[in-house]
């Protein structure tokens, strides 16, 4: 893999929760405008790795990180502003976490905290256009257009998750990090979100953590397999699934452990 097109360039990343090492010498390059899947058994470090990319681990006491993570060539732990970083790198969580406010306010939340105030009519129109566009892009608009100003908590689980995606899109990021975004959803909702991912990939770089190997196989271009905090194998998805180089990967893929 060439370093030129890489969105993320991770080198020798170590991470400790207190005394416990959760990531061990992980190096990985993530291509722009592709879907990268991270798979592995529970507790293998894949979610932790994902959370490193937009520095969500900062929120946890006692976390120590070593190694470098370059994002568009700049060190995310360096002088970069974490707020700015998170604005450009969106994250969708395992369980849908809509805020207890209306659908509209949920999507408008990001733009608002970044200083888009709907004071004038033009600004108001701009905000509602942005909200609508984000909802359309998250394939949710048709389902919620009649209830934009009702509580988001009334949506179904799948709708809530797409709302969370729309909420991220409204901030206009260029990376989407997704932490098992469909694990709490039914198969139909899952299919909708997977279809959505394929559309979004044109404009965004997507990193998705999943423990559903079929999902990784269906949606991703590259796949990384984590085990005990190590990146065991990282290759184009087809190779990982049909021709794994590492014995442990093969065992996991064929369902022998995990």
């Amino acid at each position, binding site marked *: 893999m060439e370093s030129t097109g890489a969105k993320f360039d991770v080198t020798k990343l170590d991470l400790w929760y207190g005394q416990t090492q959760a990531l061990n010498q992980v190096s990985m390059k993530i291509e722009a405008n592709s879907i990268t899947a991270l798979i592995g058994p529970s507790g293998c470090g894949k979610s932790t790795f994902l959370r490193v990319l937009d520095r*969500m681990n900062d929120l946890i006491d006692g976390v120590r990180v070593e190694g470098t993570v370059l994002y568009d060539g700049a060190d995310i732990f360096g002088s970069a502003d974490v*707020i700015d970083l998170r604005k450009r790198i969106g994250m969708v*969580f395992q369980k849908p976490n809509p805020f207890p406010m209306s659908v509209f306010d949920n999507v408008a939340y990001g733009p608002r905290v970044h200083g888009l105030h709907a004071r004038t009519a033009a600004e108001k129109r701009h905000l509602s256009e942005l909200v609508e566009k984000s909802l359309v892009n998250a394939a949710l608009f048709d389902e919620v257009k009649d209830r934009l100003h009702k509580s988001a908590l009334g949506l179904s689980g799948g709708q809530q998750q797409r709302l969370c995606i729309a909420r991220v899109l409204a901030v206009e990021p260029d990376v989407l990090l997704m932490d098992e975004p469909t694990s709490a959803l039914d198969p139909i909702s899952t299919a909708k979100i997977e279809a959505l991912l394929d559309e979004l990939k044109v404009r965004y770089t997507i990193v998705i953590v999943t423990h559903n190997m079929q999902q990784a196989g269906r949606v991703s271009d590259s796949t990384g397999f984590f085990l005990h905090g190590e990146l065991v194998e990282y290759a184009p998805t087809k190779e990982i699934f049909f021709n794994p180089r590492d014995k442990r990967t093969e065992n996991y893929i064929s369902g022998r452990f995990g």
Partner: protein
Amino acid sequence: MRRRGSVARERAAFGVIRGLSLLTIAILALIMGFILYKGFRFSNEVRGTVLPYAERSPDGLALVVGGGIDLDSLDFPVLYGMYTDEYINWAKISADDFDLLPIAIDPAKPDGSATAKLLFGESADPQWGGLVKTVPDAAAALALLRSTPGAAAILPVDALRASTDTKELRVVPIRRLMLAANEDVVALVDNRSIEDLDDAALARLMGGAVKNWKELGGPDLTVKILSPPAGSTLAAAVASGRPLSAAKASIAPPSMAAYETALSGTSGAVGYSLAADAQAAGLAPLTLKTVESGWNLTWKYLVEAPRLSGKVGGISTIILNTLLMLALTILIAAPIGVAAAVYLIEYAKQGPLIRVLRLGTETLAGIPSIIFGLFGFLFFVNILHFGFGLLSGCLTLTLMILPTIVRTSEEALKAVPRSLREGSLALGATKLQTVLRVTIPAAAPGILTGLILGVGRAVGETAALLFTMGSDYKLAKGLFSSARVLSSHVYLLFAEGISFDRAFSTATVLILVVLVFNFAARRLVGRMGGVK
């Protein structure tokens, strides 16, 4: 067999437990029922000398007052006081806030002499008060009545009937019948004297069932009942008042003069008398005990300002002071308390220091309110020179309820799922934006519940307020103005011996306020359960 015995014992034990549980409901029902009942209805033993039979037109006269005076009937001694300068305004008579203007028709006129007779009896020379305004005739009196709020006039009933415009006026019936006895009846003999007569005793006495005053706790004298001379004013009044069964008289004097002489001269004599005559003749009245009842907590009580330490008037300013106090306390306590909770939950490292501080606050949360009162009294009132007033009181209350607010707010913030905070932060929101726009709104019902609980505690507090907030029952004019609130009013009405009835009425209002807060808090808790 043993088994059956033990089963019976267990059932008995369960029965006792169930009974005790129902007892708590019973206690609550008793307290609430009693306070509310006493708050809405008063029912008091009244001691007085006049019998409870009011005449609308004594001697063909009527006491007429303006419509603004709230008076259903009047005892003769009060009427007498009105015309002898004992009262200068209506406050002590009907709790109305008008200066009193007693009007009488010139005693030189026939109508006027009747008035003098009504007030001062047959024989004495009239003791008119300086306040009394004499007018030449009934028409002039009526005109003055209509133009002066607080005026009262004694007029011939016929003149009143003849008048075309009496809409704004009201006739107040007078109670002037009393029981007079010979002095040796009411005298203290061997440390015994006649007790206050209640309705039953009165009926027995005048019905002839009591032969000797001993039976009523008085001296050892035979009861001799006098009947009023036929055709006298007294006889008419007794007949029209329809008092107890016609007295079984043992003596029937022919004239009023003889009647009075008989009363004052016959040992053990007793008979009806008009208050004015008794006063003029120096007869000893028997004290009667009657039960008065009526509505206590009226709309008027809520909307009128208190006067004379709350003896008359209502509690409007006190309710407003209470609301001011609550608003100010919340204004001070809520931001500090919620901010403290936000810091402790969202910012502070959850280390041993925080744990010690929390243990400390929790342990000290049990400080009794009197200690807060003592502290506030010396620190705010005296050292900081805030004086007795709203500010001192509210600061003291703030200290008292702050731990409650902090703790409930902490619980509410803790209950907000991590995922919401992460969702916001992942969108690039700052920590403060996340706290203000996501965490606090999500925790709002819980925080609000804490605030309401705190306020509920503040509204019922007395010990901490008595010597910090002061006890002025006027509307507080500023932060440093002394202010009486509902709870201290309840206490002071009792402690200063002003009025038990009014204490209960105020207590009822206080209970209702507390119940509203309780109910609101419960509703919020219910809603919170729904969101989670």
